[in-house]
């Protein structure tokens, strides 16, 4: 029984990792290409979730809901990029932090205005509901398994996009030398809008996918945003590979920490205390992981050394 339970927790960790990757890959891409720190990335996640919940309620189709989340988040992303974000590329980080913090306030309260304060709910579509039996007798939610698969597919897709396509070449060029791509005749502002909208769409997809597992509500993007920051710091800012590895690492650490620490404390104290202390410490586990990585490699696992201005 312990093995089955443990395997289930590992899969939960992978599912969290897949979610985090959808968030972190967009953030790290935007930072790598445009040098922008975007606190409002969590708002795009929220927008994706709300769009999905609204469309699912109207049409009953989960696939349409996912498509809506991609479209709505990408559109919102493109809109803020054109209206606000592009004025921030040449600003210092403080301005970027403040302006994107302002966007969070606007998005959160604006969404509350439109949808009200009550959480919305998304249902798992019937064809993805229920458990499947995996080798080794592990019963696991088909829906969560699907999220892991989507995360893997997106990782592969991004890899192919960056390495094999024309826009990927432009993105890589943009990461190393902005003037170079301008000299090559690439329309930078269009490229930036596309990259930002793409990151937004991934965040929106993540929000829609998590919708059936949690409730869809205001502020839902912020805990995920913080986790995605931890992922990026651990993986190294601007590194796609780092984002993938660190997403899985953080997903597993968080999930297994919550599972194992109370058990570990239960070995030598009474169960209710063990649960309390274990889960309190488990909530800190990923930050301890981050601190550890910082001590060993201040620029993250795959980060390049930063130049101090």
């Amino acid at each position, binding site marked *: 029984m312990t093995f089955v339970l443990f395997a289930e927790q590992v899969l939960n960790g992978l599912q969290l990792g897949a979610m985090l990757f959808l968030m972190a890959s967009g953030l790290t891409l935007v*930072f790598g290409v445009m040098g922008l*720190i975007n*606190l409002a990335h969590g708002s795009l996640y929220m927008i994706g979730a709300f769009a999905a919940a609204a469309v699912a309620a109207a049409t009953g189709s989960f696939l349409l809901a996912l498509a809506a989340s991609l479209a709505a988040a990408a559109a919102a992303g493109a809109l803020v990029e054109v209206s*606000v974000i592009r*004025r921030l590329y040449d*600003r210092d*980080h*403080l*301005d970027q*932090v*403040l*302006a994107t*913090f*302002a*966007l*969070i*306030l*606007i998005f*959160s*309260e*604006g969404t*509350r*205005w439109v949808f009200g304060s009550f959480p919305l709910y998304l249902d798992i579509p019937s064809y993805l509901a229920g458990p499947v039996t995996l080798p080794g007798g592990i019963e696991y939610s088909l829906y969560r398994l699907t999220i892991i698969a989507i995360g893997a597919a997106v990782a592969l897709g991004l890899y192919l996009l960056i390495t094999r396509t024309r826009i990927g070449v432009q993105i890589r060029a943009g990461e190393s030398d902005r003037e170079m791509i301008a000299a090559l005749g690439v329309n930078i502002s269009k490229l930036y809008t596309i990259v930002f909208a793409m990151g937004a769409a991934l965040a929106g997809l993540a929000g829609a996918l998590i919708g059936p597992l949690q409730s869809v509500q205001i502020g839902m993007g*912020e805990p995920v945003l*913080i986790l995605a*920051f*931890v992922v*990026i*710091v651990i993986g190294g*800012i601007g590194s796609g590979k780092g984002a993938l590895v660190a997403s899985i690492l953080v997903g597993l650490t968080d999930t297994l920490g919550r599972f194992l620490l109370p058990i570990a404390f239960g070995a030598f104290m009474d169960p209710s205390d063990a649960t*309390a202390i274990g*889960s*309190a410490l*488990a*909530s*800190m586990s990923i*930050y301890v992981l*981050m*601190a550890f990585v*910082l*001590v060993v490699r*201040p*620029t*993250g696992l795959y980060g390049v050394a*930063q130049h*101090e*201005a």
Partner: protein
Amino acid sequence: MKREPLVNAALFLSLPAVALWAVSTDEPFTITLATRTAILALAGVGLNIALGQGGLVSLGHAAFFGLGGYAMGVLASHAQTQTPILEWPVLIEGATSMPLIWLVAMAVSALAALGIGALSLRTSGVYFIMITLAFGQMLYYFAISWPAYGGEDGLSIHLRNSFPGLNTLDPIQFFGLCFVLLCAALLLSARLKRSPFGLALNAARQNPLRVRAVGVRPFSLRLTAFVISGVITGLAGALFADLNRFVSPSMLSWHTSGEIIVFVLLGGVGRLFGPVAGAGLYILLEQLLDGVSDYWQVFLGALLLTVVLIARGGLIGALAGSEVAHD
């Protein structure tokens, strides 16, 4: 530039003026607002030492604000129930004396700032922002999941803590106390800015390479500034908790960090009195707009965007000209 001292004095004196006027017209709620402004300004003055003087964009100052608050909450709640905080290895009792609570709040914040700063300052730029944010959230989640002190629900205190010779339950007396502490912090901040330390810290913000070349480690400067900054914000947290007689994890949340930065920005980054102007403006907007719409934060967001994108000098910049004073 000559106008800035005048603007500062006017803004600054308007705070006790409003409080005293509220006493004469018997509006305790307005006194409470003035007190809240003074406390939030104090938190901002703390952050401004790291942010304005040191160029350290900390998005984790809620950690110190909240720790200060919890220092108050823990000490006072134990005093209230007359149970010791710790019996072994040494006996630690609760407390209701403000000076003692402040000392504990500042010591706890100093330790936390030392730890968080030592790790975060190994990096700079965006990393620093994200890491301070993450460590702040770590404490937030810890406070939520640690049940002993109220967890998610927070911790209430029946009576405001005491200060020798004052009746802290009288709103104007408590305001006076907070205002005096704000003055002290402003004075400290001003002296610091002109001191050798402030000079070197400011230099390290502009050109760390040059600072190293004259024999000074930017890391030590920044860590010291971060600790001083955290201590002042921690003190503000203890006062804030005492004002509300309540402390909860929301004091630790990153929204609080964002708001403290907003005070500094609305007033004008790098201005001594910026946080005072910013906190005042924030409270004013909150009171004015909250009546107009339930969603006043949309307007706050829009105003913030405008300040960042267009009016970068903040309120003091708008009133006193864009030049930041150098001495």
